[in-house]
């Protein structure tokens, strides 16, 4: 245990004194966080608390005005775009596809780096990771269809397939369950747990507290761009915290209730 904390690379993602603002409005203020490997970290908080900005910072689309984001002990600005896409993958909150790519073309975008290495092997059968990602998310039957003609839930599963196809140690999910029905939500939870099992670091941004309580190993609660509390679900989602952040009492948010749902067969 002491070995893990002393060796930097065992903390895949580390935020040190990170502050970020758009123009003048501060979004994140002096955020310090560690995201360990083999864990599911849920980031929760009210609308506008800076959750999605965190995702932008993590994949290097935004850079903080002060502070440092480290991936595997390396400061993010020093990592090349190519390298970074092999470390961090993301499912975005909204997917806009202005041109009619097919599902296969869409998912294959995750593999464009390895393709160049493979000198243009274009069939799925040649790419184990891609095949695996399509099967895990159950979208194999959709690969010939245009992405834009899918339902919102199907699109979200395809986006998750693309994230899995990147095959990275760190995955970021930004509100991935917003368009999924309960069955596919449970499937997603199983997928995420499988990533954890393999030692991956999952960062799950959500405002679904039920989901967070059910799946997270660690919950980070944000409000107005600051970390209110970080810790295991029972601590982070305690009544006092919920009252302070959301102005609600826990009430229905009890562990047994979501145990009501589980996949048949």
């Amino acid at each position, binding site marked *: 245990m002491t070995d893990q904390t002393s060796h930097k690379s065992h903390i895949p993602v580390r935020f040190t004194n990170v502050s970020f603002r*758009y123009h003048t409005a501060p979004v994140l203020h002096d955020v310090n966080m560690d995201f360990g490997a083999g864990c599911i970290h849920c980031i929760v908080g009210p609308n506008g608390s800076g959750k999605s900005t965190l*995702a*932008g910072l993590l*994949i*290097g*689309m935004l850079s903080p005005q002060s502070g440092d984001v480290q991936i595997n002990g390396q400061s993010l600005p020093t990592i090349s*775009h*190519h*390298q*970074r*896409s*092999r470390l*961090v*993958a*993301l499912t*975005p909150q*909204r*997917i*806009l*596809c*202005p*041109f*009619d*790519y*097919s599902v296969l*073309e869409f998912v294959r*975008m*995750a593999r*464009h*780096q390895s*393709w*160049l290495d493979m000198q243009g092997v274009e069939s799925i059968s040649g790419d184990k990771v891609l095949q695996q990602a399509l099967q895990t998310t159950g979208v194999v039957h959709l690969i010939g269809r245009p992405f834009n003609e899918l339902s919102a839930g199907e699109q979200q599963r395809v986006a998750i397939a693309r994230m899995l196809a*990147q095959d990275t140690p760190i995955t*970021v999910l930004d509100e991935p369950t917003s368009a999924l029905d309960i069955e596919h939500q449970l499937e997603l939870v199983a997928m995420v747990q499988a990533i954890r099992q393999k030692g991956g670091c999952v960062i799950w941004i959500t405002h679904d507290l039920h989901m967070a309580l059910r799946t997270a190993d660690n919950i980070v609660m944000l409000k107005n761009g600051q970390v209110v509390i970080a810790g295991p679900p029972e601590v982070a989602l305690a009544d006092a915290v919920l009252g302070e952040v959301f102005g609600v009492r826990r009430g229905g948010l009890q562990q047994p209730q979501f145990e009501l749902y589980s996949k048949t067969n």
Partner: protein
Amino acid sequence: MKWWLPLSLVLFLGVALLSLCTGPTLQHGLAIQLAIPHGSTFGLRLARIAAAAIVGASLSLSGVYLQNLLRNPLADPYVLGLSGGASLGVVLWIFVVSMCSQPAHLPVWAVDLLSLGHTIPSFIGAAIAMAACFWLGTSRRSGFMDPVRLILAGVIISTITGACMLLVNSFLPPYQQNHVYFYLFGYISEITPHWLLIGGGGVLGASWMIGLRYSRQLDIASLSDIEAAALGVSMSRLRLINFVLSSLLTAASVAIAGPIGFVGLICPHITRRLLGPSHQRLLLVAPILGASLLIGADFVARLSGVLLNEPIPVGVMTALIGGPLFLYMMRSRTGWR
């Protein structure tokens, strides 16, 4: 599998050959004859076809880059006012040259140099128009580009540059006014200087190669900034490439033939319909289609010019095909969402 590439090349060669071999006969007045031309006629027609091919391919490629840059299939150098900016640059250059010199008294090399000069204001005009379009098309509140704003900005830029050009034109000596008037409609001429064709061909070739090199990244870049970042694509680099290449291509084509509309809209659209949106195919086929389309449109313009005994600008032809298509795309689901 790759049937589409030879097919588009066959189309291109067929149209070029048809245009090369068809023309009016001197003996029979207005009759049109189908025969392989000889002597100077051959050279003149070939130059005209080469000019049409380079301009068509450049505009089509420019359309592909702009559509990728703006993530909007309705983007086109003409619609967004780039062509207008470039041609205003050219007209201003003609004005400046006519003000400060009497070409008749200058040595030949100086006249050549002056006529070469209009490529640079053409590029500057295109780049300024594009930057203005970007600036005006970006919502100040959200920081995102709004397709409707963008198209509106393009229309206004085109209108302003058009008005400026007419104004400048009225100050020109009469013998040049007619020339500029024609130029403003987009006109492909037999007597395009060869160095201009070589330069335009060079720009086209280089931009084409660069685009093909980045084709996979262009696919990803058309999604969103956050996805591009997650998939390892540097948007700042790709934006710069898209910006510079589409301005350069527009500038080169405007320098050769004036503002010709809608080629950059029609060809990528047709290619996407037939082969899908993947940039590997799009970048290969759309420019070939653009070249074929413009050779064909110029062929029709040339023949109708012969029949009407009055030259017809090719820009009239492309606008008649492209305008309605633009409206159709705007109405249809695939236009913008």
